[in-house]
């Protein structure tokens, strides 16, 4: 337990100390809220879908969690380059505990970032109608964070350096975000898109958050929860395996 706690607290300390990282990663969500939220609002309204900010905010919050989670997971590469990884790999602690501690830490950081964006979205006009469900929203935020931190850690375990970073951004993180229902409703999508969206775990995260924040859940909260929970178990298992195979 103490080993997991040690690595967890390390992530929190590093997050807390890098103010530029916190502020820097707020830029994108704010831009999305302002540009898309206000820009597409009239069209959305005309199409009879209601208030777009209300629709968009859960998507943007998920986005900020997604980005932060993947980056936290990928920090394994930095630790490899700056040497600190070795220090944890020779410690008398099973590798899976190290992986789990890192993942929990990274996920905590991602959720904190999500909460900040959550608060910011109020300034853009987002409103909560059912405070009782807020706790369930929080659970969905945690699940999104856990899934994508585990994914990032797993990927970073097999990458040597930051050269693969652009690849991950453009072929994994961005598509995960854009093809998740974060920006558009899932009804009446073209067939292919509909299939892709359904294979994307973030879709269920966004759906769950939207469902608990006063919108309509497409799949039902229970389905959302179980899909995310199962994906998390798969990702953390694969991630732990890859992490345990790291040779320096």
């Amino acid at each position, binding site marked *: 337990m*103490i*080993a997991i*706690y*040690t690595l967890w607290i*390390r992530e929190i*300390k*590093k997050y807390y*100390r*890098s103010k530029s990282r916190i502020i820097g990663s707020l830029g994108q969500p704010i831009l999305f809220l302002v540009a898309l939220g206000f820009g597409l609002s009239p069209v959305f309204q005309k199409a009879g879908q209601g208030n777009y900010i209300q629709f968009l905010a859960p998507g943007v919050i998920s986005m900020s969690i997604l980005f932060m989670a993947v980056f936290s997971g990928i920090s394994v590469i930095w*630790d490899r380059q*700056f*040497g*600190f*990884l*070795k*220090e*944890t*790999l*020779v*410690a*008398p*602690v*099973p590798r899976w505990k190290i992986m789990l501690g890192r993942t929990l830490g990274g996920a905590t950081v991602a959720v904190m970032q999500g909460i900040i964006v959550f608060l910011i979205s109020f300034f853009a006009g987002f409103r909560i109608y059912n405070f009782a469900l807020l706790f369930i929203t929080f659970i969905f935020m945690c699940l999104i964070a856990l899934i994508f931190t585990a994914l990032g850690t797993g990927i970073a375990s*097999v*990458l*040597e350096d930051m050269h693969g970073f652009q690849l991950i951004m453009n072929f994994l993180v961005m598509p995960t975000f854009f093809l998740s229902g974060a920006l558009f409703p899932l009804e009446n999508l073209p067939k292919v898109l509909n299939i892709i969206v359904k294979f994307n775990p973030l879709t269920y995260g966004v759906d769950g958050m939207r469902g608990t924040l006063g919108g309509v859940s497409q799949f039902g909260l229970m389905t959302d929860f179980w899909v995310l929970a199962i994906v998390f178990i798969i990702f953390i298992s694969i991630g732990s395996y890859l992490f345990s195979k*790291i*040779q*320096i």
Partner: protein
Amino acid sequence: MNNIIKVKNLFKKYGDFIAVEDVNFDVEKGKIFAFLGPNGAGKTTTIKMLTTLLSPTFGEIVINGFDPTKEQEKVRESFGIVFQDQSLDEDLTAYENLDMHGMLYKVKSKDRKKRIEQLLNFVELWDRKDELVKYFSGGMKRRLEIARGFLHNPKVLFLDEPTIGLDPQTRNHIWNYLKKMNKEEGTTVFLTTHYMEEADKVSDKIAIIDHGKIITQGTSEELKNQTKTNSLEEAFLELTGKEIREEKAKNFAMFKNKKFHR
């Protein structure tokens, strides 16, 4: 015989390349053992195998009575290590780095506090304990790493070129720390270095490795007598030849990079 490190018929192959070939040596408990060799001779590869970071292709290793391939955690509890390249978390303070290490090695909170204070005083960094490591100089980082290596009272401390790139003052300090800890706490020290004079001064026993094979081992006196030379540096050159090894080392590093995610 009271040998804390035993290595028998150790091999490490990368495809056709043999990085370590039939290496045999023992290190007696409480001694300082120097493992010397030119660049790319197989020193770091051997250390990695001794410290559970790499699995041997063939051969037997015993550290403090445990097998690094089977009893990894027992072995990891038994040793401390100062790597060739830096391995601190620069975004944390000196104290936090040590504290985290102590927690990972299950040193109890009360003992941890005492031990960290003792060691930070020992390497003369106590008054800078709350500074972030990224503001430290190379020598300070090295001293901190040495303190960290001793923190959990290891039976063996591995040091892979601990004094590389440091000024003579810091180097002198570092050897003094090591000798003192070796004497006071009985920690066995296993080190590699390119500074022959330093190896000569501190070590009880020396092994020279080249092209993955151990050429000779013994005390500094024995090596000098054997080669009929006056200094360890001359003995070393006599034994390993004068050609420069950079080329080979580089090829090997490239090969390793390709095959193993370094």
